């Protein structure tokens, strides 16, 4: 069970002066249970790619397979695919429209034509998954909530579809550090308890490095690198070259190495850096 992209090419505005090759020969495989980060800056093709995954856009060449079903081959299966591949857009709070939180979250399950009992059950589950007390939140108007809360309601709206694959496009955009941490904690918990495959899209390694087990770097419409976060960080200078931010710690490690420090190339966290630096200093003393 997986999402596969095979030789994907995507061209938009074909036949106009604005013709752009957004994706160029992309091959990718996302396995069930994975926690994947897709990073790339604006215009790298990452937004287009995730829309291909749930059939909102169709590739110009190549195909996408979701659990071995070719996306778009059978239009009737599109709704099915969109249920399997849940997509949370950037600033998802702007899609809320119902009078109450519960009704808004129930929109997805309703479209799936489930029975009322199942709809209620899923709504409750989804809201609890994103950390709400169901009874307290269900009758509140989504428009009375704070920005961060709205965003969690919107994420619950996608979770209520019970997707096997959950894609989140910049889920923390515009939030302050506390809001950012809260959302990331929730996503981490979600992946742990529900075994949903999570695909996080971001333009910075910093946010996702601690969460994911695999990173795909997109650059100019191509898969530029892929591997574990450590493997990618080992090439942090390349990340900087293609305009992607790296955490200060990785930058520091690079600088130290340049100055002759014997330090691993893949340190990401403050603790790792501390251990590495202490080790090196002890080593130097002993010499």
């Amino acid at each position, binding site marked *: 069970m997986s999402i596969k992209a095979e030789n994907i090419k995507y061209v938009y505005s074909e036949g106009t002066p604005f013709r752009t090759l957004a994706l160029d020969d992309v091959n990718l495989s996302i396995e069930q249970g994975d926690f994947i980060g897709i990073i790339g*800056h*604006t215009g790298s093709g990452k937004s287009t790619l995730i829309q291909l995954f749930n059939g909102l856009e169709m590739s110009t060449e190549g195909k996408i397979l979701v659990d071995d079903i070719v996306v778009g081959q059978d239009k009737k299966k599109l709704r099915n695919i969109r249920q399997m591949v849940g997509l949370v857009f950037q600033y998802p709070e702007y899609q809320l429209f119902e009078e109450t939180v519960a009704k808004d979250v129930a929109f997805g399950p309703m479209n799936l034509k489930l029975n009322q009992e199942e709809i209620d059950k899923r709504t409750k589950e989804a809201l609890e998954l994103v950390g709400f007390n169901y009874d307290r939140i269900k009758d509140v108007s989504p428009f009375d909530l704070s*920005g961060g809360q709205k965003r969690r309601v919107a994420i619950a709206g996608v979770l209520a579809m019970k997707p096997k694959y959950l894609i989140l496009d910049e889920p923390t955009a*515009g939030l302050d*550090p*506390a809001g950012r941490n809260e959302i990331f904690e929730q996503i981490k918990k979600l992946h742990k308890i529900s075994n949903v495959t999570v695909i996080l899209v971001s333009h910075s390694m910093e946010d996702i490095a601690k969460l994911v087990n695999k990173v795909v770097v997109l650059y100019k419409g191509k898969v530029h690198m892929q591997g574990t976060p450590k493997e990618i960080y080992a090439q942090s200078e390349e990340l900087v070259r293609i305009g992607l931010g790296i955490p200060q*710690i990785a930058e520091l490690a690079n600088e130290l190495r340049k*100055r002759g420090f014997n330090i691993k190339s893949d340190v990401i966290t403050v603790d790792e850096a501390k251990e590495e630096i202490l080790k090196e200093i002890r080593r130097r003393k002993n010499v």
Partner: protein
Amino acid sequence: MDIIKIENVKYKYSKEDTKYAVDTVSLNIKKGQFTAIIGHNGSGKSTLAKLINSLLLPIEGKIYVKDMDTSDDSKLWDIRQTAGMVFQNPDNQLVATIVEEDIAFGPENQGVESSEIRKRVDDALKAVGMYEYRTRPPHMLSGGQKQRIAIAGILALNSDCIILDEPTAMLDPSGRKEVMDTLKKLNKQGKTILLITHYMDEAVEADRVVVMDKGNIKLDGTPKEVFKNLKEIKKFGLDVPQVTELAQALKEEGLNIPSDIIHIKELVDLLCQ
């Protein structure tokens, strides 16, 4: 000289609110200074910016911009001209369908003469490095470019001071860098900058950092003085730069490292001695 003087200001959005959004704040901003105000969402930092620009009026206390009282109606337009404001959403502050027309919007409102507007627009465009984009429609630009246009729009007003309310919150890393580089350059040329942000790496670049929480000023000083208070800052729902955290962790391990390190280079230099 203090270009902005805030004296015991209180503000709340509606009478029923029990808490003040800005609660007894006093703050003076020196001319030419680059000040960053940081705080989590709802800490009152955006409200403070709107108060300075006279978009909101204090319930108690006084604010002076270049010695003009912001609650003095007759000075309203002079105040807004002196302290120009850039907002968070780049799409929602550009008025015209062509970049140069948008920058002209401010001086046109001031009744500046046509040839002088042309000059100011060209100068402002060059100052933010967007001159070659002058005839483009704004919706075809990137987020960072749009914010630079918004900044140019304020420059064309001949403002001494630029207040920016989370101008980078909706931008990607390269857009953020574009905006920060522009601000640093303008500051060097003498503009007073008041940057409201929740990105610590931006605050580190400022001359002065003010931390707000629950409508109050909690910390105020140079980036070094402020960020060394690691535990306190985390308590306010904010982060400190990772190097500061690392430096303090190393210090606890007995290394001879000061606790106020905020730049990568400082730590590297110390460790490589």
